[in-house]
């Protein structure tokens, strides 16, 4: 896989090889500047810091800049861990089971140093019929949903959860520093209709304190791969918080390194849920970039008609990219967002046409830089679009 020097260094930080992929001695300031920007985009600055620190050979200014991010992240994660403890204790007190998802679950299971994993919010799975009760419980701790467009701040804790929503709107803490997302499912509408969320609960394992549950290693991988092929591939221009897909590769690498994965079980459930393409693409990309994914598993999950050249193009176009080089997901995504996108991402009331229209305009204004960036590189836009179509065709075959 051809790599730029900056991405080679990031991969050395994620999955080191006996012989480093790149020698960074002699890099100039712009080279380090690009590396820091890319690491920041993919939320890998803390990982890069921990890779470079023991070597003592990166420029002091680089080391110092990365150390600041690392320590700030360590402090933020401590705050989040403390908040999480209050959240799961409260849910447990109310008799509501809670299973951690995404960053919080990964930091607790796959990252021996949790300060290396950047997290934005806390994602907690609760039983579908307990979402309202969980929301009311968290309201007592000061977590409330932001009012929707045209809505006055709500005093009721019943939350707007449509039939297609897999999680409730983020509940923001009093201190405005942290959001909690209550999930009732890990898939969104249209994904894996055979997926049984009850099985995630059954496979869950108790946390060290025994108050909440953690996903099985196979579910951790499955969820990361689903995100890898869902919103992470496209990202959003200048919305740093969407992060880059290389962060997902790092998650996969850490799960494989620190968790005991039942590969046979993973293959079996992936087939049963008819999620082969989604999971295969994430794991294929990870293996191509050096993560120890068994070749036999990939052979088992490989969708019919898959061409490795397509997989490598996917990595080149959608993983080893950052900033304004990021692809747009599809033209349809740019110009015709769904009600769900407008409702969740842009605070619209999905039942009110005017509210949806205002949200559409807000989103359109925010996406002007994305559209401009896309228009400056029409050929890449065509490539992105073609890649998206090819992936969709693969998914339709399975």
């Amino acid at each position: 896989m051809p790599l730029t020097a900056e991405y080679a260094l990031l991969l050395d930080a994620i999955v080191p090889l006996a012989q480093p992929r790149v020698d960074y001695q002699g890099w100039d300031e712009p080279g380090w500047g690009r590396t820091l920007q890319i690491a920041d985009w993919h939320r890998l600055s803390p990982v890069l810091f921990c890779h470079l620190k023991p070597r003592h050979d990166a420029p002091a200014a680089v080391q110092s800049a990365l150390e600041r991010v690392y320590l700030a992240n360590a402090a933020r994660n401590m705050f989040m861990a403390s908040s999480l403890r209050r959240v799961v204790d409260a849910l447990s007190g109310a008799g509501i089971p809670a299973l951690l998802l995404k960053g919080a679950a990964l930091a607790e299971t796959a990252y021996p140093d949790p300060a290396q994993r950047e997290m934005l919010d806390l994602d907690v799975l609760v039983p579908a019929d307990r979402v309202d009760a969980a929301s009311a419980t968290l309201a007592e701790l000061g977590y409330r949903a932001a009012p929707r467009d045209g809505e006055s701040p709500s005093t009721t804790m019943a939350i707007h959860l449509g039939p297609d929503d897999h999680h409730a709107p983020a509940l923001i803490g009093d201190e405005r520093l942290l959001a909690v997302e209550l999930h009732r499912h890990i898939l969104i509408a249209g994904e894996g209709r055979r997926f049984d969320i009850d099985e995630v609960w059954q496979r869950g394992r108790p946390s060290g304190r025994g108050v909440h549950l953690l996903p099985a290693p196979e579910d951790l991988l499955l969820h990361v791969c689903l995100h890898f092929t869902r919103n992470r591939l496209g990202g959003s221009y200048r919305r740093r918080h969407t992060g880059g897909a290389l962060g997902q590769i790092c998650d996969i690498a850490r799960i494989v390194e620190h968790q005991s994965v039942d590969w046979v079980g993973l293959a079996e459930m992936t087939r049963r849920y008819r999620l082969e393409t989604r999971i295969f693409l994430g794991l294929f990309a990870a293996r191509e970039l050096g993560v120890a994914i068994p070749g036999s598993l990939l052979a088992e999950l490989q969708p019919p008609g898959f061409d490795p050249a397509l997989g490598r193009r996917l990595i080149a176009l959608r993983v080893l990219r950052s900033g304004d080089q990021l692809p747009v997901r599809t033209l349809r995504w740019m110009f015709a967002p769904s009600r769900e996108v407008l409702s969740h991402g842009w605070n619209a009331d999905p039942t009110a046409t005017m509210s949806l229209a205002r949200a559409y305009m807000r989103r359109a204004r925010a996406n002007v830089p994305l559209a401009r960036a896309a228009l400056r590189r029409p050929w890449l836009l065509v490539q992105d679009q073609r890649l998206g179509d090819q992936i969709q065709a693969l998914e339709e075959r399975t």
Partner: protein
Amino acid sequence: MSGGSDTVLAERVRREEGILAQEAHGQTVLLRLEDGGYYALDEVGAMIWELCDGQRAVAEIVALLCEEFDVPERIVQADVLEFIDDLRRERLLVLAAG
């Protein structure tokens, strides 16, 4: 007072409530929950932080560090007092009651 310090050797200091501490790649990060302020301590700072348990007098902490590191007592004493003063000013340590 000792050598211009706010802290006296016979006093005992303890960690303030609402401060979280965690080891992070060779450093100890302290987080003050009240306002989100955070600090990083090196290995020696982390050792003093751990010893400030409200049970030991500052003089005992100095003696323990002198045993650990082969450094003259007056230097250790000055450094420990300055460090504890700094952390008291930052509301990370407080005098233990009694």
